[in-house]
């Protein structure tokens, strides 16, 4: 018996020793090493950045594409009448299985001998053009009654969610410090070059410095003008991919994109302007590729289109930017079909917009994460904003509210149950805005006759338009780290948000302010 016990003990010991030896390799597994370079945030003291001047004679001028006269007229009429939609246009989605005859029957309710060919199609959307002068809202209501139609709506003009603001202080990129971006960059190093971020906005000029031939109004006549354009020196041209201008055409958008407003360049700068290059300011995902998709026209786009159409004079006073739903939804679908993984949409309006909702659902289903601005109308009745209010219904799309430097709600930031997350968007009443490189404001002033879009300054903007690209930039970094499911990206951003305001999710901040470092770094066992 003692011998048996002894043998048992020896066996147990041998087994345990074997287990130790066998188990050892599993604890030695190698986890990919993270390189930790010293990221140097570039100096923010440079107030003005000029593209090197290229002599006019050295450049070959090409014609600048402009929107059609018909579209230009619609924009002008909307401006004059103060409409939030383009007159004479209704966006329609037919139900699946509705054939040509069915579609013709449905459209016949508009009256007249309307042919189905009086339409423009892109994706599964149809733009029905109507010259009867009937309010598109009424036309859309009639069409919605038809059994062949899934939805119909006016071509709403969405607005950009930002307000330019003059700088009055020195600490310009407080927003990136607030987000502890240098530490986040130690993990993600500006993201990966195979990640494409689409910026649906007023465009980001992607052309090298050159002259474009445009018609414009010189105060007395329509003249041909050599317009100076050029990309921001803080965007390496090779980082732009598949740029398109959907303000000119939703079906055949030209690839030359010129930002004549500055909003798109500013938003794109926050997402990922060149960083650690000793120039100007920093962007969040400074290694990813940018897809500039122009879907919002500015004042000068209208001017050039007017002059090209032979319409003398200037756009009416008050003409600002506008983003047709048709253009923005076409841009969203284009991004989804052409490899974008993240999309920023700093645009919104007050009317339900199933066209944009559909496009967003389509994009997310194709693996695109969408960040969208929450709206700037808190002090203007705080209406429900679209498409922001669709955010909670789409896993992989987030509505972004704005916080100021003191982590309070920016005074303008819309609130509502749809708010999902918050990011710095500036607050001029608190003395802080978001600084990025954009076209020089004096060069694009509507007081000029001959603007130019080739010189850049650091400019301070505020708005949920500025908050949203922070989230898009973070999403791009997360995608670069292998989190490619849009719903997962949203979940990671929410999970690591810093709770602000009332405990838990609230209408002002959603889940709280993004924490890029925590989202990228994760948590350990105890910290």
């Amino acid at each position: 018996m003692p011998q048996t016990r002894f043998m048992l003990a020896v066996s147990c010991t041998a087994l345990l020793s074997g287990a130790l030896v066998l188990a050892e390799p599993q604890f030695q597994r190698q986890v990919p090493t993270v390189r930790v370079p010293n990221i140097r945030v570039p100096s923010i003291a440079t107030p003005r950045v000029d593209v090197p001047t290229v002599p006019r004679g050295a450049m070959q001028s090409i014609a600048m594409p402009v929107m059609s006269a018909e579209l230009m007229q619609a924009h002008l009429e909307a401006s004059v009448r103060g409409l939030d939609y383009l007159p004479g246009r209704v966006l329609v989605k037919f139900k699946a299985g509705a054939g040509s005859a069915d579609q013709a029957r449905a459209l016949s309710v508009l009256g007249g001998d309307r042919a189905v060919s009086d339409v423009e199609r892109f994706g599964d959307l149809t733009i029905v053009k109507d010259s009867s002068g009937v309010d598109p809202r009424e036309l859309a209501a009639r069409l919605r009654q038809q059994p062949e139609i899934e939805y119909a709506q006016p071509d709403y003009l969405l607005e950009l969610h930002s307000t330019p603001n003059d700088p009055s202080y020195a600490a310009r990129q407080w927003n990136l410090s607030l987000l502890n971006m240098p530490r986040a960059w130690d993990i993600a190093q500006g993201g990966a070059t195979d990640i494409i971020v689409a910026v649906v906005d007023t465009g980001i000029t992607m052309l090298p410095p050159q002259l474009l031939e445009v018609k414009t109004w010189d105060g007395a006549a329509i003249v041909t003008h050599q317009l100076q354009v050029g990309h921001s020196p803080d965007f390496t041209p090779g980082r732009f991919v598949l740029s398109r201008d959907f303000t000119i055409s939703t079906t055949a958008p030209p690839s030359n994109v010129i930002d004549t407003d500055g909003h798109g360049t500013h938003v794109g700068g926050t997402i990922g302007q060149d960083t650690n290059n000793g120039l100007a300011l920093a962007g969040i995902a400074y290694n990813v590729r940018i897809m500039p998709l122009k879907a919002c026209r500015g004042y000068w786009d209208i001017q050039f289109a007017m002059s090209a159409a032979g319409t003398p004079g200037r756009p009416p006073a008050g003409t600002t930017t506008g983003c047709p739903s048709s253009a923005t939804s076409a841009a969203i679908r284009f991004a989804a079909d052409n490899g974008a993984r993240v999309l920023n949409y700093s645009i919104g309006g007050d009317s339900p917009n199933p066209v944009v909702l559909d496009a967003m659902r389509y994009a997310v289903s194709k693996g695109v994460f969408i960040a969208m601005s929450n709206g700037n109308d808190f002090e203007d009745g705080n209406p429900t904003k679209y498409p922001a209010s669709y955010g909670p219904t789409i896993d992989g799309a987030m509505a972004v509210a704005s916080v100021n430097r003191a982590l309070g709600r920016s005074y303008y930031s819309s609130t509502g149950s749809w708010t999902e997350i918050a990011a710095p968007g500036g607050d001029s009443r608190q003395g802080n805005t978001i600084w990025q490189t954009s076209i020089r404001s004096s060069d694009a002033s509507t007081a000029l006759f001959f603007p130019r879009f080739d010189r850049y300054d650091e400019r301070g903007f505020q708005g949920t338009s500025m908050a949203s690209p922070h989230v898009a930039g973070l999403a791009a970094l997360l995608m670069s780290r292998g989190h490619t499911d849009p719903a997962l990206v949203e979940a990671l951003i929410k999970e690591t948000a810093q709770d602000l305001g009332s405990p838990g999710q609230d209408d002002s901040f959603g889940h709280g302010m993004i924490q890029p470092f925590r989202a990228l770094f994760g948590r350990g066992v105890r910290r």
Partner: protein
Amino acid sequence: MRASLAIPVVLAVLAVGPAAQAQQPVTHVAASVVPQTKPAAPQTKPAAPQKPKTPPPRRGLRVFGAAEIEYLTATDTFDAVSDLPVLIGYGGGVELENLIRRLFVRLSITAGAINAEHGLVVDGSFVPTGVPFDIGMRTVEFGGGWRFGRATKSFYAGAGLTLRKFTEKTDGFPEEDVAESHNGYYANAGFDFRVAPKFFVGLEGFYRKVDAGEGTALMRDFNESDLGGAGARILFAFKVK
């Protein structure tokens, strides 16, 4: 003669109980209680049989080295960060034996490490972030126990206090490092046997409970708070004295 020697030994063993069996050299017991070969002076009545005296076992000192494998109680947390909720530790200690009869006290120190990966918990699932870190656990235990059996082979059981220092280190992110100490207790049971005159090999099972609170990270997310575990340990002991 042989029979007369055996009877008092049996009596002594019965009186002392099984605890004494393992250690008591038979010859000592015999020497102390064996009747004189010469009868004592005549007495009016026969002397009552003397209660056999068992000398206390000799106090001793052992030093030992140990290797242990511990299945951590915070299974979800450690399973997430390292694929297997197991800590392998090495260390050693000293043991004072036979302080009071078969009572021993032990002080041991072990340390183990785990290569881990940071992550986040989303909807109850762990999502790794690809940022590696090292977990370290240094454990100091002080306690005691009782041995059963003989000097060459004995079983023992014990319990005591545990002090566990827990660390997390991430290269390049010192501000994220963690160094905490938590108290708890342990219980163990095992056996050892002599393989050479002063050399013992033992195998024991143990259970540690070290309540660390939920913390602010993955243990909180997984609703776990115990940094202890259960495991087995192999000991190589050398009897110094």
